[in-house]
């Protein structure tokens, strides 16, 4: 999709490069493409309008006019502006002393509050805190049981009071307040330093339920109130976010279900309408699938460019730090060898849920389906690479350039593969090496270029660790086993 946006913008500006002058008309035309991209990503239309107006002003200024490649510069302006609007980044949770710090979760039905409570509790535990979960969703049948189970899973106590559960869905006045109050008292008694209040999902126009929430807010004064919002939300996200913010004074936003293939424009809408920072993203059903928010990747995703930054980063994070540092130094110096490449391959396995990251890339989902891979294929191809590597001399491993026709035949025979496969193996390595070098020194535009390579299906050229393993149909194999490794059931 970035492809199309870049292409479209390229089209708008074609022939203008070098002439040094771009009319307001050109910029406006380009903005129409940007507008469509944003609307298709579910950014609210009012937010889109504000956004494009602001960008037009910027673009008509110096940047574009002085540029040689106006299309790319336009994208950069759009991207930078998006990043700016989604910031400033503040993913901190503020604690009070003496405790307990009270955090309240609010949101529409089905947005993912209960699961997010569990994730947050787990995160806090990992940072040395001792949270207590409070089951204040007294409306949805079995919501209390759900939180209890989640509490067990993350090893955090859950305060419940079954007597307060609404018998037939009717709101019982004061019940939620009572549960929250008792939970806070319990936390004090048992020395828990954080209380997370799981509240019932409600429509922002439901007066009875919003009243209940306001009551909890007014009486117990939670130190932080987070709105939990479904990343797949459409235009209406602004209405609910606005209403919750007005009635509760939110402190932050948590967007859930970002492991879907939504472009996630609701995030931008909610951020803009509330002015409150996005704290976390929910990226899976597992209770550790909560990530701190980074605007850079999100801007690309909303524009339909895929979370390339996030992809590279998450790959990096899961790498052996030392090993990665070593590899990086080599890349920068341009001394990345086939040996390193194989070490990198071994690391790829640790990279984690490919499905998760791949899903972030527009078009990838479809592409992966087309590949039609059998389980274990990847294992096989890894083995073949290993075999080819083993058949090489030390000199060849250090300097694959040495491998001409004769050597190639020898290696192929030794590894029991076709000669062509050896060539491809080396080519993959070279691409990986070149792109790895580029990633280190990559600016925004570089990442865009990379994205374009990606959209063409040229994953080997991605230059991210593991790139060579993610092939499209044309070139054969694709990482699949790792994708399924994190199967939840």
């Amino acid at each position, binding site marked *: 999709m970035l492809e199309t946006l870049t292409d479209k913008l390229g089209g708008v500006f074609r022939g203008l490069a070098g002439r040094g002058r771009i009319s307001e008309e050109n910029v406006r035309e380009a903005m129409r493409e940007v507008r469509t991209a944003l609307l298709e990503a579910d950014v609210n239309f009012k937010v889109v309008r504000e956004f494009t107006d602001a960008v037009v002003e910027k673009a008509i200024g110096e940047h574009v006019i002085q540029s040689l490649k106006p299309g790319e510069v336009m994208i950069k302006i759009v991207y930078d502006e998006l990043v700016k609007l989604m910031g400033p980044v503040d993913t901190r949770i503020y604690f009070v002393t003496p405790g307990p710090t009270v955090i309240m979760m609010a949101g529409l039905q089905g947005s993912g509050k209960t699961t997010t409570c569990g994730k947050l509790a787990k995160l806090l535990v990992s940072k040395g805190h001792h949270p207590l979960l409070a089951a204040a969703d007294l409306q*949805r049948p079995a919501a209390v*049981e759900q939180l209890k189970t989640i509490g067990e899973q993350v090893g955090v106590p859950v305060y419940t009071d079954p007597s307060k559960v609404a018998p037939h869905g009717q709101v019982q006045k004061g019940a939620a307040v009572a549960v929250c109050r008792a939970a806070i008292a319990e936390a004090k008694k048992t020395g828990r330093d954080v209380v997370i209040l799981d509240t019932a999902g409600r429509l*922002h126009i439901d007066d009875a339920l919003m009243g209940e929430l306001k009551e909890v807010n007014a009486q117990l004064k939670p130190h932080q109130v987070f709105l939990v919002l479904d990343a*797949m939300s459409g235009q*209406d996200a602004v209405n609910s976010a606005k209403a919750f913010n007005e009635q509760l004074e939110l402190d932050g936003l948590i967007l859930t279900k970002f492991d879907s293939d939504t472009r996630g424009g609701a995030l931008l809408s909610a951020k803009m309408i509330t002015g409150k920072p996005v704290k976390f993203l929910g990226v899976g059903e597992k209770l550790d699938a909560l990530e701190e928010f980074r605007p850079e990747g999100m801007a690309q995703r909303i524009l339909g460019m895929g979370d390339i930054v996030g992809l590279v980063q998450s790959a990096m994070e899961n790498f052996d730090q030392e090993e990665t540092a070593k590899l990086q130094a080599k890349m920068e110096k341009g001394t990345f060898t086939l040996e390193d490449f194989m070490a990198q391959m071994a690391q790829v396995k640790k990279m984690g849920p490919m499905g998760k990251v791949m899903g972030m890339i527009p078009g990838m989902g479809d592409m992966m389906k087309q590949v039609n891979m059998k389980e274990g294929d990847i294992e096989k191809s890894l083995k073949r690479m290993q075999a080819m590597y083993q058949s090489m001399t030390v000199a060849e491993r250090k300097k694959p350039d040495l491998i001409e026709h004769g050597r190639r035949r020898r290696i192929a025979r030794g590894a029991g593969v076709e000669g062509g496969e050896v060539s491809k193996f080396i080519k993959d390595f070279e691409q990986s090496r070149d792109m790895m070098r580029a990633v280190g020194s990559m600016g925004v535009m570089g990442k865009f270029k990379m994205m374009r390579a990606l959209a063409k299906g040229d994953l080997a050229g991605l230059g991210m660790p593991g790139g060579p393993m993610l092939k499209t149909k044309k070139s054969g194999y694709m990482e699949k086993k790792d994708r399924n490794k994190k199967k939840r059931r």
Partner: protein
Amino acid sequence: MAFLSKAYDKLKSALKKTAQVLNTDVRTLFVPGRQINEEFLGEVEERLLAADVGVANSERIVSTMRDRWRLGKIKNRDQCQEIIREEMLAGWAGTSRELTFAASGPTVILVAGVNGAGKTTSIAKLAWYFKNELKKKVMVAAGDTFRAGAVHQLTIWAERLGVDIVKHKQNADAAAVAYDACEAAKTRGVDVLIVDTAGRLPTQEHLIRELVKIRDVVAKRIEGAPHEALLVLDATTGQNAVNQAKVFGQAINVTGIILAKLDGTAKGGVIMSIRDQLNIPVKFIGLGETPEDIAKFDPAEYVMALLGEKGE
């Protein structure tokens, strides 16, 4: 028909609330006698966008208006309302929204959707509808064995509604639950069996495959089953709903959509794109959290509600 008008009242009152929140009344848009101009057309487009109708459809509708206006065929704003209605309703003509029932033996309805869409609640609503409106013997199957509390949730609904339930323990094989439910439905002479499933995202291929497996099990146990495979969509969902419909549609051959949570301020206009691209009809709408908050989907009513037009 009392049922339908009740639904319409519900929709109307939901829209009244919409107006309160947005502080605008959609009816102010198509003022009779007021002339069309570009500003007005821009506003119509934004209203359509705001309802999640999508860029392509919104632009198409507005350009139809613009063309007719420029050709002098229409002049006043209220005439545009007709165009919207025509444009929006045309695609729905001729699609059946009736449920398919088994000729004999239990009718099986498989319910699927993304996490939190409203599946379980919609099942409670369907169960209520079949039992109370159609006087059928209903059974539900707790096929969400994954999410914490899910089995319990459906159990509570079954108790409240007085319908049978087949369930296993949490983390049991969902297909096994479906299997047992089919057998139980046959032996107990159940008319309608509704199978709940865990929420899953279109990106989770292994879970989509699991859903296919559940469908296959059901198909093996009962002839012609599932007679309906209903996808629950959250009306607040944006353009991603198209992809949901695509993926679930391919996996289990979705026969209809339940558009849940229409009692909020979201309009679920994305169903238009789903209709155009995939031709999956919306069969029911969800209008609240209690079992009676269900209505059959009626395109004319829906469009009226979408536009905020007064009912007779």
